[in-house]
């Protein structure tokens, strides 16, 4: 279960509109340091939008975001990064023409101030990117680019990490491997939000899940309980993503 510490992030009544469409429609949840929270829901339910708003890509249209006791709604991304929030992207977004090493160096140089940055060689080693260090990021395959997204995020020493479908496209061995890394990160004190369609993976690593539908949460608790809730089953029924 979730550690009973005070949440590091509290999302309350979050609304994000695109034109007249409510991508987020009053989303509320919280996550604490050391906890891995799963964010699941059918395609288009607003998971990525939630991450985009929390990481400052979009300003919320309504609702509050409280991080570390302060309101952060609408702050620019780089400021949130300096406060310890970082993320990966569902479609990885490395700096394609820069080398893998340079990709990480930017984050090391411009990431959180006042904390010692991690060692670049260790990061590349841990996420199996060391052998590509001097190649342009464009040479990496999609899962390697996702790892580079993760390494870039970790280079800024985040305290809240948002992972958007990091595991999609990995084989079973790689899934176990990355699950181990995510758990270790949480054990070191990071709060982690994991968006994922692979229920087995969610089961394996999360302490708690939020099930989203149409921009708001419809369930909060463990995955084991979630799969027995009729409303949750209904939302996923006919959906292409099973366990």
């Amino acid at each position, binding site marked *: 279960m979730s550690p009973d510490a005070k949440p590091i992030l509290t999302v309350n009544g979050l609304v994000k509109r695109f034109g007249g469409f409510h991508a987020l429609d009053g989303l509320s949840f919280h996550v604490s340091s050391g906890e891995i929270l799963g964010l699941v829901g059918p395609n288009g339910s607003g998971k990525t939008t939630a991450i985009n708003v929390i990481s400052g890509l979009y300003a919320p249209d309504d609702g509050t975001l409280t991080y570390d006791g302060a309101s952060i709604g609408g702050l620019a991304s*780089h400021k949130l990064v*300096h406060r310890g929030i970082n993320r990966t992207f569902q479609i990885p*977004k490395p*700096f394609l023409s820069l080398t893998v090493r340079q990709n990480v160096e*930017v984050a090391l140089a411009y*990431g959180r101030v006042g904390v010692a940055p991690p060692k670049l060689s260790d990061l590349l080693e841990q996420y199996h990117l060391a052998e590509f260090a001097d190649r342009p990021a464009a040479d990496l395959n999609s899962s390697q680019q996702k790892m580079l997204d993760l390494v*870039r995020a970790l280079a*800024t020493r985040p305290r809240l990490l948002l992972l958007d479908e990091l595991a999609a496209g990995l084989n079973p061995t790689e899934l176990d491997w990355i699950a181990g890394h995510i758990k270790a990160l949480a054990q070191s004190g990071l709060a982690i939000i994991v968006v994922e369609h692979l229920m087995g993976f969610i089961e394996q690593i999360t302490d708690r899940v939020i099930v989203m539908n149409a921009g708001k949460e419809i369930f909060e608790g463990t995955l084991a309980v979630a799969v027995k809730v009729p409303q949750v089953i209904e939302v996923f029924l006919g959906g292409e993503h099973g366990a």
Partner: protein
Amino acid sequence: MPSFVRHLLLIVAPLIAAFAILPGVYDNHLLLFNFVIFLILAQGVNIIYGFTGYLPFGYVGFFGAGAYGFAIMVMHFQTPAPLAVLVAGVVGVLLGLLLTPLLRLSGAYFAIANLAAALAVLHFVANPALESITKGPYGVALNGTFNPTLAYVGAVIILALTLGIVVFLRNSSFGMALQAVREDAVSAAMAGVNVVKMRVIAWLASALVAGLAGGVFAWYVSVFYPDNVFSNDFSIFAIVFALFGGVATIMGPIVGVLILYGVYNLIGFTTPQYFQLIYGVLIMALVLFLPAGLVSLATRRGWNVP
């Protein structure tokens, strides 16, 4: 040896030395001066386009504004020429500040808006109603400061400064962060980079060198019309030279200017009748076969071009 010292010693110093010595052995000083001006402008385009991805189709706006900044200081305030060149740089920066909203646009929209802005500045300066200040369309004649020898020295100093900026960008985490912004602004922000601030700094640095170049150009030629110093040939040439060599490097724009502007003058002297044709074909061949510039011949082989 740190790489920036190596770049200063092996690229900047020899180039500056060459242009300092050449007037003593080569008589066509105007040609040498134009080489220096295009080296400055091509590197200025490199700063903004190579490192941030904004293609400044109206780059000449800063150059012309600088030239008129110089002229106004000399005509109305009897400012000594070197000081008036500095003012020209300030005018470039001020125009850059005025145009920062353009940075919200991207791709072709930015290029077109920048072109329109340069035309707007041209028509503002050339407005007959401003004759008492700018001499309007009738052009300026600055006899009092005419001194091509000193103006040439000034141009070489500005070139050194410009190359210094590019060497810094090429060797600093600041320059790397700019390139990260160029590649993906959202990801750059997630690396902790203040995207807007970085873009504005690069934009103003680029405006500064063009303004200075315009000032020193006005000093050198001392008689000019709005259409001369706002001629979009400056933008096009600077962009083509920079792209031909390869941007986001120190060497690329230098090689681009030396080769292309060299060939340009060679054809112009020897076979002027085929001039446009040969030049056009050359540029088309470049765009088709070497879109990333001459330096890509080396980078493709895995060599790191400074």
